[in-house]
């Protein structure tokens, strides 16, 4: 019989069977695990338990949610928020809905009037477009009291960017057409699918 195992790979069973191996210890098979290593191992296990609890709890607190999940979340929230792991993952849930756009008008000191709407497909690349889309979605989906704060920030940026004296902003809801409507010749950008809601007019001295 020919053994094809290289000699360097042969390990005497009787010598190693008596020596526990510590993780990452190279060939230090004879060294028993110290109490510090055991403590470290226990800490890693505790952290794993907390981490898993945290990442499972975070999405469970998106409404509707139970009191229990909210209680657990309160305990792990600092950890989740500190690491930016506090997410709901409710993508396109409960169902895909209409989108929100922002329509604006800036009037400069010399009387020039600039108008715009975002997101629009002139904003490129696509990720940059999507950043603007998320802004308009945030504004459109915010509750009214928060919307009043956010729109002021938007107005301030438009005022700064286009050197405006007054800024008028409205949010535009773009509803989704049904299949029947499209089959009957409707388009995704038909005018009646857009519904504009003015959010206010702001003066430069109030913003900057």
């Amino acid at each position: 019989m020919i053994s094809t195992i290289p000699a360097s790979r042969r390990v005497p069973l009787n010598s190693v069977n008596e020596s526990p191996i510590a993780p990452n210890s190279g060939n230090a098979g004879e060294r028993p695990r110290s109490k510090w290593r055991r403590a470290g191992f226990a800490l890693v296990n505790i952290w794993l338990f907390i981490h898993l609890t945290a990442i499972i709890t975070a999405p469970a607190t998106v409404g509707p949610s139970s009191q229990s999940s909210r209680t657990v979340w309160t305990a792990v929230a600092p950890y989740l928020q500190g690491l930016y792991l506090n997410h709901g993952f409710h993508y396109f849930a409960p169902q895909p809905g209409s989108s929100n756009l922002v329509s604006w008008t800036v009037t400069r000191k010399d009387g020039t009037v600039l108008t715009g709407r975002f997101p629009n497909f002139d904003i490129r690349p696509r990720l940059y477009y999507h950043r603007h889309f998320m802004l308009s979605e945030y504004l459109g989906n915010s509750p009214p009291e928060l919307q009043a704060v956010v729109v002021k920030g938007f107005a301030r940026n438009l005022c700064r960017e286009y050197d405006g004296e007054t800024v008028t902003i409205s949010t535009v809801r773009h509803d989704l057409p049904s299949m029947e409507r499209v089959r009957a010749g409707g388009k995704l950008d038909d005018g009646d699918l857009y519904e504009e809601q003015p959010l206010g007019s702001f003066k430069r001295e109030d913003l900057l």
Partner: protein
Amino acid sequence: MRTRYGSVNLSPGQTRIYQWASWLLNPIRVAADAWNQFWYSPSDPVVLALIRIFAGGMLLYTHIIWGLNLPAFFGSNGWNSPDVLAVVQEDGIVPSFWWYVSDQWLMPVHCLCIAILFLFWIGFATRVTSVLSMIITISYSYRAHMSNFGLDQLNAILCFYLCIGPSGALLSVDRWISVLRARRKARREGVPYAAPVVSRSITANLAIRLIQLHFCVIYAYAGLSKLQGGAWWSGEAVWLAFANLEYQSISMTWIAWYPWISDLMTHTTILWEVSFAALIWIRPVRPIVLAMGFAMHAGIGGMMGMWTFGLIMIFGHLSFWPAGTVRRLLGDLPLMPTMLGTLQPLKQTGQSARNTELKVAPVLLWVDRTVRRQLLCLRYFWQRGYHCAASRDLQEARELRETTSPDAVVVMATGWEDEEVTTFHDDHCSRPDAEPLFMILSKSQSARLNGRIHTAGSHVITGQVSLGSLRREIQETLNHTSDDQEFEWAAEHSIGEDS
């Protein structure tokens, strides 16, 4: 499945039998062992390194795009102005260095961040740059709070786990530097150069497991939350997504004439997302689950314009790829032999699958079609400190042979056709440095195959053999010194055609 004794490939039925028996015998110990096996088995860092390249590239791209208009997104009078965010992020912990950066320093700080992200991407000083990249990712995300979406969440998740494991151990500048150092050292000492061997790492496994579990959580909640919406039940949801002009990058309105396509895609999406956390752990189904995931995310990327989000999800799926497959796929690319290195065999690393008790011992690949006998034999060898990988299929055994690098292969040939047995035997023995093969045949099988399968390096055993005898023969062949500890249990059991 993995047991406290090593990695074993069992069919679902076998796994259930084994688990029930184990749970009945010692549930706490088994649960603790399973936990340790799952989290602390040392693994090849190649998968983590590959994720670093893809996710690191996406991280770099994401942050370059932020730079197109820094004052708008990070300035004091931008979209995300601090006074607005103070209201929006009320009571939250929102760590970000951007709170302390004034408007005139936006560009220099941004350029520094881009440089760090670039270094992380190429794997330079990865232990440091990975942590810095994590800090950068969190800081940008909180500061540009209202412009965020799923991509930023996934960027942070992957970056966090890449900090935990040795993501720069391979396919990196760090690896290249270690190779150069080894070359210089060999030249200085006048010895032949040997490329630094790649160590298996517990933290690599930990990071991969965390990515895997986080993706299970993501898909479970993504699927379950959709069940609250009527459109995901009526089949309209995919249509509604495609009919959203702001998301659209390719016109999909033609689906209005084929509603069944929307129905099919909607139901498939829900089923896939809800079942992902369960099905992904079933090895034969895993490629199908991942292929469906690839199709779904590629569709989101291609048709809904969110290719960055689609890609980052696909990059996360890499955590489910076996390290051996990744090595094989990358192996033929230029420079890869150096950048990948050779993986240190498990038994030489001083590490074991179960970090506290497993012993350094030979690895057996056990091939047997009979479930009960296989479990009996494996248990015998496990108890004597052997690592065992097992298979019920000869083709799978060939693959396992490559991934587990066994010291010896044992085939209980009684369950297969003669042709299959001889093919496996000839194929095995024709390999350079073939491991010793122990082939146990029934008497009738032996008579039929007489003279056809005897070669140097293979050991043919006919009829009955006791486990003790087989173990001694294996040990003698491997030139191991036996501890000569015989067990009554062992002597009483024998394997072969009559058992």
